[in-house]
């Protein structure tokens, strides 16, 4: 089947999409955006978090056909050209990246948190990030990055 959608501001028409295919598969394999990571495929890890019509979702749990005529923003769409988004810069500065696999999903999740709440409390940060797994950092540096990015946003 055919799916038409907007990804990071660019209109796309994709043919040959399978009926049971996920939005994540479409983004990675058909649009060629490998930033959103494919790990658990069951919504547990958050490494495929993207915006679907301004809502943060796990792309692995959206059927590609459900994204027809939608606006999708992936981690690749957050930076302004070569200029990193403040959330991305905070991850680099705080040392919140180790192997890097979870980073794209976390960056989108933190971007979404700070878009909704400019000054999140400790509990709010933990709640917002509960759906993103990181097996390297122990999360403390990631929380540092959130506080850093929140401070900059203020």
């Amino acid at each position, binding site marked *: 089947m055919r799916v038409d959608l907007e990804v990071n501001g660019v209109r796309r028409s994709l043919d040959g999409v399978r009926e049971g295919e996920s939005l994540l598969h479409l983004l990675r394999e058909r649009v060629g955006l490998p930033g959103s990571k494919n790990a658990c495929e069951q919504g547990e890890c958050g490494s495929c978090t993207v915006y679907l019509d301004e809502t943060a979702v796990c792309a692995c*749990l959206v059927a590609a056909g459900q994204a027809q005529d939608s606006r999708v923003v992936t981690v690749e769409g957050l930076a302004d050209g070569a200029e990193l988004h403040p959330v991305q810069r905070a991850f680099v500065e705080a040392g919140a990246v180790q192997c890097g696999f979870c980073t794209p999903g976390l960056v989108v999740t933190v971007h979404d948190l700070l878009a909704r709440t400019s000054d999140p409390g400790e509990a709010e940060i933990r709640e917002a990030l509960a759906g993103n797994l990181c097996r390297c950092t122990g999360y403390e540096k990631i929380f540092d990055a959130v506080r850093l990015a929140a401070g900059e946003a203020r």
Partner: protein
Amino acid sequence: MTGFHTAADLRHACELKAAHPDATLIAGGTDVMVGLNFGHTSPAALLDVSRVPELREWSREDDTIVLGAGVPYTRIVDELGGALPGLARAARTIGSAQIRNRATVGGNLGTASPAGDALPPLLAARASIELASLRGTRRVPARDFFLGPGRSVLADDEIVAAVRIPVAAGAEQFAKLGPRNAMVIAVASVAVTLDPPRRRVGCAVGSAAPTPVVAGDAETFAGAELDWDGRRELPASVTARFAELAAAATAPIDDVRGTAGYRRHAVAVLARRTLTWAWQEYRRS
């Protein structure tokens, strides 16, 4: 799979379901896509109802909230915490922010898992389910909806359209047990509602029987024993008996998340806590 159908409105969704009774409904996708991604399920077709406007709204009719089956949990938490505190409490415990942004009560009902977090609050509150089809709309008490794991009274041509939930008449509590605070399939869960004007208690249990179950003996016992007028502190003997009756209503199994014995114990503990919290709230009100 050979089809992907997108419903524009509820009537269209019913037409599509009648024409493709073997199609699997998909709204938030948080259950359906897991089955597809892992190749555990191979439905003939998908019927996308995520854009059906009637399913995405809620309204208030007198003392009832009519909740569209496709309202995501994030909105239930944000918009219905006052009217439906029990359901909103359960909604807060579901999955993660990303899951709550997509997952719906209709999905919990359609999947009919005994572990569906929204289900015990619906049973405790004596909600009813609106099922729509080209034949018309019927209402089924939530307490009569489930037949077994993954099975309900939903017919092949029907769609869960809405849930009619009484606005809370008193305190409502929910508790669930699992290995962490997020992304957990409940080992056991309990919902308790107090209805002081009717001197009635609601109590339902999740993850401890083939379906979510009502603890009817616990409800009757607490309704008669609670000191509705004097609002005195709950005697330990009452909470203990309530816990025992709630556990007796279950029929748990051993599985990877816990043994039957552990589940029975957990239900008793959760029942005691939720009744205590609800009663404390009532005494303060």
